[in-house]
C-alpha cells in the first residue's frame, strides 16, 4: 500500500513539475527539434494507415447505405466518422505505439547508462531539456497529425467512392465538409492534444524512472505503449460525454 501511495505521489509530482515547466522553462531549439522528430517519425505510418482506414471504412459502409437508398450520404457519414472519432483514435493509437515506445526506450536507456545522471551533475537541468520538450512536442504535434490524418482518410474515402460511383472530387468534398460543424473540428483537435499530452507524460515518466538495466528499458517501452493506449480510450470516452453535453446546449 505504501509503495502504491509513493508511486502515485511520484506520478503527481512528475505531472505537476512538467506542466509547471511548460510555462517557466522554455527550450525553444530542443522543442523545435522534438516537434520535427515527432512529426517525421509518425508521418509515413499515419499517411498509410489513414488512407487505408478511409478506403476500408467507405467500402464497408457503402452496402448498408445502399440498402436504404442513401448512398449519397456516404461522404457525410465518412467525414463525420473520420473527424469525430476515427482520425483522432487511429492517430492517437499509432503515436502511442510509435512515439510512446520510442520515448520510453530512449529515456530509459539514457537513465540506465547514466546519461541523465551525467546531465544532472553538470547542472544542465535534464528534466526541462528531455521531458518537458518531449511532452510539449507530442501535445502540440498530435492535433496537427490528426488534421493531416483526417484529410488523408477523406482522400482515401474519395478514392474508393470515385472508383465505384465515378463521383467528382468537388461534389465529394462539398458533401463531406457541409456535414462537419465547428464543434466537430475543435473537439477533435482538443481531444487529440490531450492524447498527445497523455502519450508524452506516460512515456517520459516510464523512461525517466527506468531502473533494472536493459530489462528495465524494455519494460519502460512496453509500459509507455500499453498505458498510453488505455489513456487514449479513457480520454476518448470522457471527451465524448463532454462533447455530447456541449451539443445539447
Amino acid at each position, binding site marked *: 500500500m505504501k509503495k502504491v501511495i509513493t508511486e502515485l505521489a511520484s506520478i503527481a509530482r512528475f505531472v505537476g513539475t512538467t506542466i509547471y515547466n511548460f510555462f517557466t522553462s522554455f527550450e525553444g531549439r530542443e522543442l523545435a527539434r522534438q516537434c520535427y522528430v515527432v512529426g517525421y517519425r509518425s508521418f509515413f505510418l499515419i499517411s498509410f494507415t489513414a488512407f487505408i482506414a478511409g478506403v476500408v471504412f467507405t467500402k464497408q459502409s457503402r452496402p448498408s447505405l445502399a440498402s436504404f437508398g442513401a448512398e449519397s450520404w456516404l461522404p457525410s457519414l465518412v467525414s463525420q466518422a473520420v473527424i469525430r472519432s476515427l482520425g483522432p483514435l487511429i492517430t492517437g493509437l499509432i503515436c502511442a505505439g510509435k512515439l510512446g515506445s520510442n520515448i520510453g526506450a530512449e529515456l530509459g536507456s*539514457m537513465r540506465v*547508462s*547514466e*546519461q541523465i*545522471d*551525467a*546531465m*544532472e*551533475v*553538470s*547542472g*544542465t*537541468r535534464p528534466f526541462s*531539456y528531455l521531458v518537458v520538450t518531449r511532452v510539449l512536442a507530442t501535445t502540440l504535434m498530435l492535433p496537427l497529425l490528426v488534421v493531416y490524418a483526417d484529410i488523408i482518410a477523406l482522400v482515401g474515402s474519395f478514392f474508393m467512392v470515385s472508383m465505384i460511383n465515378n463521383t467528382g472530387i468537388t461534389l465529394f468534398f462539398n458533401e463531406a465538409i457541409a456535414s462537419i460543424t465547428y464543434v466537430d473540428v475543435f473537439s477533435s483537435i482538443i481531444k487529440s492534444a490531450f492524447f498527445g499530452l497523455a502519450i508524452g507524460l506516460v512515456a517520459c515518466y516510464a523512461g525517466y524512472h527506468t531502473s533494472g538495466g536493459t530489462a528495465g528499458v524494455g519494460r519502460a517501452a512496453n509500459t509507455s505503449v500499453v498505458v498510453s493506449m488505455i489513456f487514449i480510450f479513457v480520454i476518448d470516452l470522457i471527451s465524448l460525454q463532454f462533447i455530447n453535453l456541449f451539443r445539447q446546449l
Partner: protein
Amino acid sequence: MNMNVKFPDPLVKPAIDTDAVVRIRHLKKSFGEKKVLNDVSLDLHERENLVIIGKSGTGKSVLIKCLVGLIPSDAGEIEVLGKNVPQLNEDELNELRLQIGFSFQGSALYDSMTVRENLEFPLKRNKGLFDPHELNHVVMEALEDVGLAGAVDKFPSELSGGMKKRIGIARTLILKPKIMLYDEPTAGLDPITSAEINELINEVRHKHHTSSIIITHDLSCARTTGDRLIALVNGVNKLEGTFEELKASKDPDIEAFFNY
C-alpha cells in the same frame, strides 16, 4: 566543526583541516533494509587525490553520488566547497555542480550526439556559449588535453572504452571544475589503457589544480593516482593512509583486498 569522528584503526589520521574542499561527517545511506553507508566520515583537501578503495557493493559509488546530490543521504553532513549539500535547493545545487566534474564508470556520453556536441552541450546549457568559433576553440582545447582531438566528429559508438573514458573526462573538464570525482576510471580497460587513464588523472590535477576523489578497486590505479587512500568496508571507512600504509595493514579485510 565536528571533532568527534571515530576511526577504528590507529593508522587512520583524521585530517580535519581548514583547507578541506569536501567534508563528510557520519554519512549514512540505506536502500530499504540494506545499509550501504554506515557512518562514513572523510575530508578531501585542496589539490589532493583521495582514493577510496573497497570491494564491489561497499557503497563507494553511492558515496560520491551523495556528494553531488544525485542520491539523497539519510543522515550526516556533506559539505562541498563550504556548502551544505543536503540543504541546498535545486538552483543552488546546480550552481555547486558546475564546480564538480563527475566521470562516470560507463563514461555516460550522450550517444545521440557526436563528441563535439557532447562537449558543447554543457557549455551551451550552462555558460550560454553559442559562438561557433569560441565553442570550437574550447572543445578542441579540451580534446587536446586528453589527446583525442581527432575524434571530434565521431559518435560514442565509434569509440573504444578508453577513448570514451577520456572524452568523458574532457566533457567534465570543459566547465573548469574545482573538484573531480572519478567513478571506477579504469574499470573494464586493459592494463595499458588503464595506465594511460591513471596518467591522465594525474595530469588533470597538475594542469587544472583540481582536488579529486577516485573510486576504484584497481590497486594499480590506487597506487598511481592516490596521495591518500581510504578503505571502505561494509559502508564504514575502516582505514586511511598512504598506499604503503594500507598495504602493510594487518586488518583481515584490508589484507585480503591487497593480497588477492
